Each structure stands twice: as structure tokens, then as C-alpha cells.
């Protein structure tokens, strides 16, 4: 394992120290229990937006804390859901009197920990599940779809709605609308190594790739032979496009995400093909996002997320956001 770390068990706490040192003006970091909050919060009368999940997906979620997006992020151990005490303290820290929205990626661990926290919270809490990953069968016989790329979009749009002063129920409804209208699928060229585990989560041969990977290095839908980028994009887009279903004339936000170890230059090669295919299908890409936003440590790979847009979602997407990882309009 080759990593820029000191103690595998201290990765999250030392990174939090670095974040606290780097952004004292905009972020307030609590170490025990661990959370990253807006320095200027809680904002009186504003719905608080809380998200959290395992670490190792940076900039998600801590990089999205700031005006117009999250009020607070709870980082768990690497790839492990945070715990209810963090969520409880964080909920309290951002409670501006208008209730708090919990944005929860649909993983059993996250769901149960957030549930426990919500049960214990004295503040009004509404939870929204993100479950956009079409790689996973959505049936009553599974834990349901995982939350992946759409999480970034849900956080941005719910954050903008809260910033605009909308009440908790509306903010939650918007967050659900984003999740319902978003579909994602990802793939990996390489595995990644959780620091406190020390060995790669899975092994891929030099000529193999994993299609339908989650963001925790979980095994994906299928393992196939390496292919050119265009074919990979086609493979990812097909289930996304047919699942919603997206149809000609739809306005979409196209989000090409890197899993962490893939150079930006390759993500633009991916975006090129996404734009081609959507163009052929008559979909209009009105907004896009290209970069490493929800990652799996140093994993090489990409995920594609499409969100069906309407005027309100576009307006909330465009609204000012001021975080370390997403910033515009400010």
C-alpha cells in the first residue's frame, strides 16, 4: 500500500485537521464527534442540510459544505458509514429552527445509522434516500439501488432550495425529485486500497474492467475485457437511458465523474462520447459537470449520471454555491 498517510487508523482525523487548517474562514471542524460545518452556521430560519457517509469519496461530502449546498458533513471511517452520534451532534449544530434535511446514500449501513440518529434527534428531521445506481437491481429482495453520482446533484439542489428560504418539506420534495429523475452507472479500471485494510479491495487483471461498480470498491455487475472509452461509455449509458426512461427532447444535466485515479483528460474523452450519444438520441445537455466529485480513493474509472431537468431544477443548479469543491455565482 502506497499512500501519503501516517497512521492508517488516523487518516480521517488527520485529514480533518488539514481541512480545519486550510479553511478556517469558511469551515468549522469538530473532531469528536467528527463533522465539518459551515463556519457561519447555523443560519437562523434556514433548513439545515446534512449529509455524510464513509470517507474516501472526497470531495464528497466535506468539499460541498458552504453557502448554497451543505451546512454540515459527517465523515465516517474510510468507506464506512458514520455513526449516529456524529449525525446527532451535526444535526444540532446546523439547526437554525427550520428543521434539518438528512441526505442519505442508500447503503444498509448509512440508512441504519441515519435512522438511529433521526430517531434520537430532538430537531425536526426529514431524511431523503439517494438511490440512483442502475447497476443494481432494484427489488424487494435486495437492499435497493445504491446512492452514487446523483448525491452531488441532490446536495447542490437541496442546498440551493434551503438557501432560498424554502421550508423543509419543499426542500425534501426537491431532493427526492432530483433522485427520482437521476440515473447513474460507474465502472472501474483499477481497484483501490482502504488504508486500514491495506490490500486492494478487489483484483482486476491488466486486461479487465469492472462494470457497474459502486463507490466502495464493491464488486460490480460484471467483469469484462477492457474496451475503448467510447464502448465503455455506451455500456454505461444504455442502462441509464432506458431506465428512467429518458426520451428525445428531454433536457438533461450530464455529469461525468472520475473515480479518483483517472486523469481529467480521460474524463473529457468520456464526456465527448456522452455528448455524441445524447445528441444522437435527441437529448439536450443543458448543464454539465466534469471532474472528480464522488470518488473511491485512487480507483481509476468513471461514472456517468444523467438528471432530467426542468426550469426549477436548472434555476436551483445555477444558484450561487460557495464550497471548496463547487463554486460559482459568488
Amino acid at each position: 500500500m502506497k499512500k501519503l498517510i501516517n497512521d492508517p487508523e488516523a487518516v480521517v482525523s488527520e485529514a480533518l485537521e488539514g481541512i480545519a487548517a486550510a479553511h478556517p474562514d469558511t469551515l468549522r471542524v469538530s473532531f469528536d464527534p467528527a463533522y465539518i460545518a459551515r463556519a457561519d452556521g447555523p443560519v437562523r430560519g434556514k433548513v439545515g442540510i446534512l449529509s455524510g457517509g464513509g470517507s474516501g469519496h472526497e470531495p464528497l461530502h466535506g468539499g460541498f459544505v458552504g453557502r448554497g449546498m451543505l451546512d454540515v458533513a459527517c465523515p465516517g471511517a474510510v468507506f464506512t458509514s458514520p455513526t449516529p452520534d456524529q449525525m446527532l451532534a451535526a444535526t444540532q449544530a446546523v439547526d437554525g429552527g427550520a428543521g434539518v434535511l438528512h441526505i442519505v446514500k442508500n447503503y444498509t449501513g448509512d440508512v441504519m445509522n441515519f435512522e438511529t440518529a433521526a430517531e434520537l434527534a430532538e430537531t425536526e428531521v426529514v431524511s431523503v434516500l439517494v438511490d440512483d445506481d442502475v447497476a443494481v437491481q432494484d427489488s424487494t429482495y435486495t437492499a435497493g439501488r445504491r446512492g452514487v453520482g446523483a448525491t452531488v446533484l441532490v446536495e447542490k439542489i437541496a442546498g440551493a432550495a434551503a438557501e432560498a428560504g424554502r421550508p423543509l418539506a419543499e426542500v425534501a420534495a426537491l431532493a427526492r425529485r432530483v433522485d427520482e429523475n437521476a440515473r447513474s452507472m460507474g465502472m472501474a479500471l483499477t481497484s483501490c486500497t482502504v488504508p486500514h485494510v491495506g490490500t486492494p479491495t478487489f483484483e482486476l487483471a491488466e486486461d479487465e474492467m469492472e462494470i457497474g461498480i459502486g463507490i466502495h470498491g464493491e464488486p460490480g455487475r460484471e467483469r469484462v475485457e477492457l474496451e475503448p472509452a467510447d464502448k465503455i461509455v455506451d455500456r454505461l449509458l444504455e442502462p441509464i437511458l432506458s431506465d428512467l426512461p429518458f426520451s428525445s427532447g428531454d433536457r438533461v444535466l450530464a455529469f461525468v465523474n472520475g473515480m479518483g485515479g483517472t486523469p481529467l483528460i480521460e474524463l473529457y474523452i468520456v464526456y465527448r462520447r456522452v455528448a455524441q450519444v445524447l445528441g444522437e438520441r435527441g437529448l439536450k445537455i443543458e448543464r454539465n459537470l466534469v471532474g472528480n466529485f464522488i470518488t473511491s480513493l485512487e480507483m481509476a474509472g468513471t461514472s456517468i449520471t444523467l438528471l432530467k431537468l426542468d426550469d426549477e431544477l436548472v434555476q436551483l443548479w445555477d444558484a450561487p454555491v460557495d464550497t471548496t469543491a463547487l463554486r460559482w455565482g459568488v
Partner: protein
Amino acid sequence: MDVAAWVRAGAAVLEQERDRLNRLDADIGDGDHGANMTRGFKAAAERVASGAPAADALRTVGMTLLSTVGGAAGPLYGSFFIGLAGGLRDVSDADADVWATALEAATAAVQRRGKAEPGDKTMVDALVPARDALRGAAAGASLQEALQAAADAAQKGAEATVPLLARKGRASYLGERSIGHQDPGATSTALLLQALAATADEQ
């Protein structure tokens, strides 16, 4: 029964089996179950004092696991120990019968939290047979013997998860590919119940 001794024994065996649990979890999950459990039990072992009333100690263990394990295992084992604590409350000298009732409560708490049924390839597949074995043995056996029967049943239950298709938790994403692997959570449950039986044995 000294809960602190059990937790220390549990922490030790989890530490020892950490890599195996990680590997089992890597096969059908995300490879962190050993790390998660080790982290939690290390913290629990530090926080639980020998000699405290069993119910208090078990509650502390449950709360500690809840706030240190994370993932799926955190709330589930948290519920488990808080459930055990409930069953042992106000009992000064718990016998096999009391423990059987407590394990019933704990298993119910895990199922309430996780909604898993036997056969879903989760820790419930170790817990349910353990619970039944403990109840079955409680009438005619010593506490130690009854706990050993529970531990053995848990072990068999864990092994019996191999051919199952996962329907809960991260492993369920794999569908058919989850078949042929032993469930890490069921495995850690068996280890912990084995540590419990061994601790009772020493006393």
C-alpha cells in the same frame, strides 16, 4: 458472567481474525468488516470496567459500538448489545434461562433494525440458530454448556451462509455472485458467541 472479560476476549479474537473478516467482506462487500469490528471492540474493551453490573456494561458496549463501528455492523451490533442489556436488567445472577431470554430480545432488536430474515445471508443466520440452541439447552444445562451450544449453532449457521444468495446489505448488490461465500457478519457473530462461551467457562 463478567461482560468486560467477554468484551476483551471478543476484541482479541476479532483482532486476530481481522484480516479474514476483511477478506470475507471483500468477497461480497467492501472489505472492511474486520476493521470495523476491531475498531469497535477495541473502544468497547477500553470503556467497559470489570465488575460493573452486566446490564450496564452491555449497554455501554452497545452505545460504544453504535458510535465507533459505523457501517451496517455498527447499528446492528449496537442494537444487539443494547437488546442483551435489556434482557439482563435487574438480574443479579443470570442463569442460562435469563441469557436465553436476553438473546431472544437481542436477536429481535437486530431484526427490527435490519429487517433481515433467516436465509438472507446476514448475521441473523448465526443469531437465530444460536438463540434457538440456547433456549433449547437452557432447561437442562449449565450456563456455560448452554452458551457453548449457542456458539456451536452460530458457527454452523455462519458456515451455512455459504450457499445462500444475499438479500440484505451490500452483498445483495451481487445477486447470484454472492453465492459461495461465507457472510462476514455471521462469521463475526459466531466468533463473539464463541468468546462468550469461553468466558463463561473460565468463571
